[in-house]
């Protein structure tokens, strides 16, 4: 009984009767929200008739370039026309439109642009994740504040924020974990790298007789004057800092493989001729077994094949450092390789 009275009381309320009579969805939840990306709007006067919008449009009937009729004084303007019956409101046309201001506008997403933060520097800093020990010293010293970030337990440099000041490189305790890369003059940089490697190889080959005497476990040390090399590199690109950086970086990571050939021990068995993957070793009756150094890949297969020990295989490492008398030297260290000889 009480529930019946409660129902009667509820239905007798004026607000209930009003709502019942005018039951309707609120117009503000029915209307398009302001962020809704509607059909693109065309601003004819900016169009350059490049056709990028028609190429980007996924619907075949949606967009067409139209040209007005020429008048006596000037040519008719070309502009895109949107067919609402075909347009899917994706906004691609507005996104690809290259004019500034845009000929086509559609929603707001395509108007958001990242701020232009590129500073006129020719150096870019990156972190080598393989060498990074995650001490986060670079993060603390970063001048920008948040240009070095941690993401998925990796330390990264945000290139959009980095101002290339180089402070992080100075504090990094691991050599090579942060690298300063020169962005400009890439071809010249390649030339300098080739020059350095060729010079070092020639230097070692000049000492071939000494190299052959290296026994197992022994280390052969050699100092090369680097001033000539730097002088030659200046001829390629006169940039002192870049040359120093390149030579230092290349000598840090470079591992040269050296092959020596002892003619006296060779018995012309020809076992290595077949094994060589690049056909650098050939056999003729007059000359015996001959190695072509230009073709050689230094893969060490001949060294592992030779049963007579005629071929030597050595690993060379380098260190670039200033010498006592003010110049620069490259310190070369050679040792025999640990590779086993196939028996």
């Amino acid at each position, binding site marked *: 009984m009480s529930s019946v009275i409660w129902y009667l009381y509820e239905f007798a309320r004026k607000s209930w009767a009003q709502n019942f009579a005018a039951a309707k969805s609120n117009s503000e939840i029915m209307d398009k929200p302001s962020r809704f990306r509607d059909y693109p709007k065309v601003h004819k006067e900016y169009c350059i008739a490049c056709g990028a919008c028609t190429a980007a449009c996924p*619907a*075949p009937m949606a967009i067409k370039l139209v040209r007005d009729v020429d008048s006596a004084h000037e040519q008719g303007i070309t502009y895109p026309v949107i067919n609402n019956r075909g347009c899917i409101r994706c906004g691609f046309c507005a996104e690809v439109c290259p004019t500034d201001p845009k000929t086509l506008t559609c929603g707001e997403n395509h108007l958001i642009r990242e701020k232009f933060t590129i500073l006129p520097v020719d150096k870019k800093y990156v972190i080598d994740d393989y060498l990074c020990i995650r001490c986060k010293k670079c993060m603390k010293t970063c001048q920008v504040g948040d240009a070095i970030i941690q993401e998925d337990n990796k330390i990264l440099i945000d290139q959009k924020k980095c101002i290339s000041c180089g402070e992080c490189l100075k504090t990094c305790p691991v050599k090579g974990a942060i690298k300063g890369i020169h962005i400009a003059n890439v071809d010249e940089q390649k030339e300098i790298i080739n020059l350095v490697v060729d010079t070092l190889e020639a230097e070692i080959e000049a000492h071939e007789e000494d190299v052959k005497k290296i026994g197992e476990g022994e280390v052969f040390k050699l100092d090369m004057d680097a001033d000539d090399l730097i002088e030659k590199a200046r001829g390629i690109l006169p940039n002192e800092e870049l040359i120093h950086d390149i030579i230092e970086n290349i000598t840090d990571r470079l591992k040269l493989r050296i092959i020596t050939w002892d003619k006296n021990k060779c018995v012309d068995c020809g076992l290595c001729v077949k094994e060589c993957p690049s056909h650098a070793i050939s056999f003729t009756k007059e000359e015996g077994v001959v190695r072509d150094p230009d073709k050689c890949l230094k893969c060490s297969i001949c060294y592992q094949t030779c049963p007579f020990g005629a071929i030597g295989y050595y690993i060379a490492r380098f260190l670039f450092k200033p010498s006592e008398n003010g110049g620069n030297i490259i310190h070369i260290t050679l040792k025999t390789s640990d590779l086993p000889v196939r028996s």
Partner: protein
Amino acid sequence: MLDGLKDIIRKSSIHVCLVNTGGCNGCDIEIVALLSPRYDLEQYGIYVHNNPREADVILVTGAIAEQWRDKLQRIYAKTPEPKIVVAIGNCPLTGDVFNQEGGNVHAPASDFIPVDAEVSGCPPRPSEILEAILTVAPGAIAARGRQKL
């Protein structure tokens, strides 16, 4: 007198049948959204039946695939008079993204059955569909009803 009575009843209760003739289902989902409490289609006296024999309004979506050409006409024939057709979305209007070179769609739908109202968009907003049905359907149904009788 009888016509006047019929008009009032037809205006206040519209029965709708949804026909997807090979589209991506996006427009159908928007129509289903109309049934939700947010838009609440039934407060306007519109009922979705999905049975052409009970329908006053056929909502056509999709780009008319090969198999739908004769079946669409059969569905139209089965619908009792007075009936109107509303094409929902871009597919029955132009074929939209399906109407590529080498495609096998037979848009527009008006090639096969008379279309009274068109709602463009891919998909159109539920409010746009509702607006189209409400502005076109009652008047068109009443007019067609008077024509025949």
